[in-house]
């Protein structure tokens, strides 16, 4: 039997024989779905990517933020 087939059977039989493991995998998959398909997609867009297309634009924007902030108290 080839090595690849051995590895395949190792994983296949391992997954097949799981009981508690199946429940845990379900939790992992549901969690990943909530995280990536719901949270990331609807609530956590990459802020700079939604506003700018190039690295140059992003860098310019951040530099603008860094130089335009007005502290509340004047200093000499």
């Amino acid at each position, binding site marked *: 039997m080839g090595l690849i087939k051995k590895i395949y059977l*190792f*994983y296949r*039989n*391992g*997954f097949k*024989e*799981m*009981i*508690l*493991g199946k*429940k*845990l*995998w379900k*939790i*992992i998959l549901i*969690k*990943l779905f*909530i*995280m990536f398909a719901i*949270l*990331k997609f609807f*609530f*956590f*867009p*990459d*802020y*700079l*990517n939604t506003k700018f297309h190039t*690295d140059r634009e*992003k*860098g*310019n924007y*951040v*530099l*603008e*933020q*860094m*130089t*335009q*902030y*007005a*502290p*509340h*108290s004047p*200093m*000499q």
Partner: protein
Amino acid sequence: MTHIDLSVVNWARAQFALTAMYHWIFVPLTLGLSFLCAFFESIYVRTGKKEWLSITKFWMTLFGINFAIGVATGIILEFEFGTNWSNYSWMVGDIFGAPLAIEGLFAFFLEATFFAVMFFGWNRVSKRFHLFSTWMVAVGSNLSAVWILVANGWMQNPVGMVFNPNTARFEMNSFFKLVFNPVAVSKFIHTSSSGFLFASLFVLTISSWYLIKGRHVEMAKKSIVVAAVFGLLASSFVAMTGDTSAYEVSQKQPMKLAAIEGLYKGQTKAPIVALGILNTDKKVGDNQKSFVAKIEIPYLLSILANHSFTAFVPGIDDLVYGNKTYGIEGAASKMVKGRKAIKDLELFKNARKDKNTAKAAAALKDFKINQAYLGYGYLDKPEEAAPPVAVPYYAFHIMVGLGTLFPLLFAAFLFFSIKNTLVEKRWLLPLGFISVFLGLIAQESGWVVAEVGRQPWAISGLLPVKMATSNLDPQNIQITFFMFFGLFTLLLVAEIKIMLKQISTGFEEGGDLK
């Protein structure tokens, strides 16, 4: 001119704290329990006794449950970086890219490969290869932690980088300095050994419960011996590395040290406050007493901070307003330099826009003179350079107090285990039972000390948290804050429920995640 909406900053902070603190429930248990499983299995392979196999499989199952529930909870932190902390993410992308990519590779190749053998491999691979896989999972899990702590250590002590004003990014110029940053090294050792300690308490808690109930007595006693030895060793490491950490903090983040000790006015031969109640009316720079009541240990803070009985330890007032006698530059003076750096950066930006190369080069030259103070330029007043004192002060003292108790607990469990009288010590077993909850409080307190104690900085001295955030509507962050709260609570409840079921099943039926 841009003004920062502080409610955005504070909600983003709160959301990050919530996510990180929930994530931190699962991580230390993974770090420590993986090694305990490796110890149990090593004993089984060496002795060939079936009871050690049952013990190994039982704890391995609990490890698997914790791993499955906790895995990927840290990814949410990365979502938050991109959305809530976009300025920060942009600026540190080059620094964090390498360590986090390495972490991903380690996690994938070491954990994913050997994790499968660990759970599917019983009776399918040789005993020795299975044991090797268990050790690799332990080593891999802990190596993953190295990289995230390298990133965190850099934020606390930014080294091995230069700021590139053309791209507005910090760029790595020495991988070696980044990885061997003394703050990162002491942070990794302290954090991982505290994870070992926490997992040992976890074993103590469940085993004590079995002993109280009179179930699985022999298995529980054997588990306790291994956990007590590991916990005792880990406690010594935690104490030693805590000392190293405190020294590094005193050298690199003296404000944090002053805050966690409630030290407003610096002093020579500085004592450490063993127990104390802070005066809540005390403000930076006023003449009120710092404490309502306190018990001190003479000289100890000077020794801890500078390894000298007589050394001067600066207080918050010295660091905010400066102290000429001891050559300490205050935040007020640094703010002037910081604002000059911002002005020069603006001149550079405008000259670059006008394509005036000579003017841009001159502005850049001037910027470099004060760039180390850049972050101070964004502070509104010198007092803003100090963190809120009460939170890190109490968190630090809770952490140290509990950290002192744990080795005594492990020693007592080990002593009575060796004498074979542990089951008779009905006063000790309830203490063992609650110990994991105390451990969790100590773990979370440690996070609070590290992260609240370094406020107001996202990157120490270079970028305050308020400048790291995105221009968002605070309502968006509030909504996701409560969503996370719900999601994480649900995951925690699921973990506890599945674990309790497994614990109630006990040793005989455990193993293989079946």
